[in-house]
């Protein structure tokens, strides 16, 4: 068991890797009533083609998410979600492009709940009937997603930016693709990706690290298996596949996402640095205290829901800038003008430092919620770094590297756009 200290934020993590390859992270928080546990696999909607027992498998879109729904069924006919809830825990799961995570929070019986979490996630049990029934439920969920403006905008942009990376398709799949799923598909994907070496266990709360590790060792498969190989197709270029994707929906005003692909580095440390650099650079250029934002807000062209950031999943990274505007074209032009201004003048030193302070404080505020802390720690472990490292790395970033990041990636030919227009 190792202890990792982060003195700037007054926290210490306990961590170890079990003999079966499972990394475990525990953050003890004395005096809180709520504890959370998250057990996640590095497997999501994009992982459709993979190597198992020496053979490449191609699976329909939506299996990871389907599996997430079905994992709660236990062989004795019980349902782990209902059982956890009946014990007073609040349990849930989510699937993204590259991750499936199961988590609960509770105020009592933490170790019993943790045992159940470890057992149900490592126990596949699917029948023809239960798969058929779930196809109905998920079809409804997919329909609901079709009405969601956020989903349409997001996948619009992914489809515009990426040519063939599977991250461009909906994590839930389509009504047609999930109809192809059988119990065999689910068993194969579980065997390939729900291996301890491809997963992570995170616990935050008034809990004991030794006890967590002992439970995980007792309940999970003992032998270490290799991490699965997956294939996302040929590496994409940095140019967008399409300049624009448009859709009409019942919205009150146009909504847009502007984006540009970003090269995702190989090592964890470089990835964290890129995430921080991108965030700080984008906030300084386009954030709430920027001349760009203030002007467009005053002109009624942006609202305070305008957001910028970098996101990455399954190696597909991109800058995202989104919001609502009656003139999305003007916003796009203004972004490019802001970059041109940056090319000539550089960032104002004082403003850059203020944005750095703001980002530091925002990161501290993000530590308040155990659930989102577990999520970001989980994501960072899969990407090869530790989220709290940011507090020592952020003060090191230079103005110049932030400027060159923007100048490199935010250009006319790299930019693409997703639009949702009123009917």
């Amino acid at each position, binding site marked *: 068991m190792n202890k990792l200290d982060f003195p*700037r*934020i*007054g926290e210490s993590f306990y961590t170890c890797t079990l003999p079966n390859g499972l990394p475990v992270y525990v953050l003890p928080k004395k*005096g*809180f*009533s*709520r504890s959370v546990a998250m057990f996640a696999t590095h497997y999501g909607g994009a992982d459709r083609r993979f190597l198992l027992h020496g053979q490449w498998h191609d699976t329909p879109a939506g299996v990871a998410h389907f599996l997430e729904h079905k994992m709660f069924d236990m062989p004795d006919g019980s*349902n782990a*979600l*209902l059982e956890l*809830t*009946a*014990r*007073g825990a*609040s*349990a849930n799961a989510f699937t993204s492009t590259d991750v499936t995570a199961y988590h609960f929070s*509770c*105020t*009592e019986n933490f170790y019993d709940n943790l045992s159940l979490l470890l057992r149900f996630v490592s126990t596949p049990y699917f029948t023809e009937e239960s798969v058929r*029934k779930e196809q*109905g*439920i998920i079809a*409804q*969920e997919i*329909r*609901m997603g*079709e*009405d969601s*403006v956020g989903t349409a905008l997001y996948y619009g942009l992914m489809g515009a930016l990426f040519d063939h990376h599977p991250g461009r398709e909906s994590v839930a799949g389509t009504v047609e693709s999930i109809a192809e799923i059988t119990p065999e598909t689910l068993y194969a994907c579980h065997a390939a990706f729900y291996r301890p070496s491809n997963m992570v266990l995170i616990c935050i709360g008034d809990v004991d690290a030794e006890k967590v590790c002992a439970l995980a060792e007792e309940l999970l498969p003992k032998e270490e298996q290799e991490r699965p190989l997956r294939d996302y197709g040929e590496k994409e270029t940095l140019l967008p596949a399409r300049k624009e994707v448009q859709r009409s*929906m*019942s*919205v*009150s*005003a146009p909504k847009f996402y502007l984006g540009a692909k970003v090269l995702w580095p190989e090592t964890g440390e470089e990835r964290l640095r890129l995430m921080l650099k991108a965030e700080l650079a984008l906030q300084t250029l386009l954030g*709430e*205290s920027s*001349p760009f934002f*203030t002007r467009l*807000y*005053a002109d*009624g062209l942006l*609202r305070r829901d305008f957001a910028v950031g970098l996101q990455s999943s399954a190696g597909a990274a991109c800058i995202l800038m989104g919001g*609502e505007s009656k003139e999305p074209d003007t916003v796009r032009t203004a972004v490019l003008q802001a970059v041109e201004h940056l090319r000539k003048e550089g960032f104002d030193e004082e*403003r850059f430092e*203020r*944005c750095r*302070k*703001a*980002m*530091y*404080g*925002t990161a*501290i*505020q993000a*530590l*308040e*919620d*155990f659930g989102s802390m577990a999520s970001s720690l989980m994501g960072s472990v899969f990407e090869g770094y530790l989220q709290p490292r940011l507090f020592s790395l952020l*003060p090191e970033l230079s103005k110049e590297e932030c400027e060159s990041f923007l100048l490199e990636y935010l250009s006319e030919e790299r930019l693409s756009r997703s639009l949702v227009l009123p*009917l």
Partner: protein
Amino acid sequence: MERMELLPNVFLTAVQTDRFKTALMSASLLTQLERQNASANAVLPSLLRRGSSRYADMTELQYRLDELYGASLEPSVCRYGELQSIGFTARFCDERFLPEKLDMTGEMASLLGEVLLRPNTRGGLFRQAWVDSEKEKLAERIDARVNDKRGYAINRLNEEMCCYEDYGTYILGTRDSAENLQYVSLSKYYKELLATSPVELFYCGSAEPQAVADALCSAFLTLPRGELNEELGTDIRMNTVSGDIRFFEEEMDVSQGQLALGFRLGECMEEPDYAAIRVFNALYGGSATSRLFRNVREKLSLCYYASSGVDLHKGILRVLSGVEFSRRQQAQDEILAQLESIRSGITPEELSDARRSVANAYRTVSDSPAALESFWLDQLLRGEDYDAETCAALVENVSAADVLAIAESVQCDAIYFLKGEGHE
């Protein structure tokens, strides 16, 4: 928790704790939610945030917030029954975790007072350009109601079901009332509101309550205090509007239907047993072991979700369910049938599951500053001063008979259905 009256009808509720890395400080003016004023109330926080006498515009204000390590100062507009609460919520880092020495409590208290009380005006009136731009944004937000289909269905149910009550007022008002805002009358209205509204201040963080009180006192010293609006409150209607359930439908380009059912909690609101009402709600549709979740969603696969929620201020229960258009009747029948079946009895397991779910929700209140704020304001505005631990204990004493009494008292008043275009 400590509660003190800092100025006439200006109350501070302070929770001192060192378990968090952040603190929360908020100021809310309370007023009656009424059709004629909802838009004026709703526009004020955003308008005030445009600039103050010290921080002339949003850029200067944002500079200040950035310097204070990304502190946020968000306009808030919310409701407690038929009360509308408007103001600001500030969240900021506890100074123990900052690389430099700052008096965050003092800085944030003074920012709150500055923004709420000293707007950047011209000749004592709001700037016309700012009013015009904020009222347009408000109108856009009102239009944007349709973007979130679930929230829209709930709002529309409220409007239809409570069309004779203030409760039916949408919290942002209507597009017309937003467009009709005018800078001269709005300036006058703002001054009146400042003078007549009770003010609720809330703080949760590591500072001493007295130090917070001192900081807020000096920040709010110039708050004018006039004749208090004595009429403030929520009118609870016990019975349904007509003998039969009223039905409302609307068409929109959607692929999934939204079915919203509104109930009056009825006579049990004469002397409300809030613990029993919450347990009833958890058992009926407010938790993952509820009747609606287990039967309507899991057993019959009738819908993707079906859940219930209560408004304890007003005595209203709402059920919302996402269904395929063709299965609307089936889902509706099942939702009503489950209420009927609760009346004829519940199992000890479902009772204890429901009690545990509500009690646990109370126990986790102390884990987050925001949860503490909403818990205490909700509690105090209903005239209760039990802490969350006491609420949890009360919940654990709720009996099957208590739950059945609530179920007996509940009556369906109205049903709203949002369906696709051209569907039956």
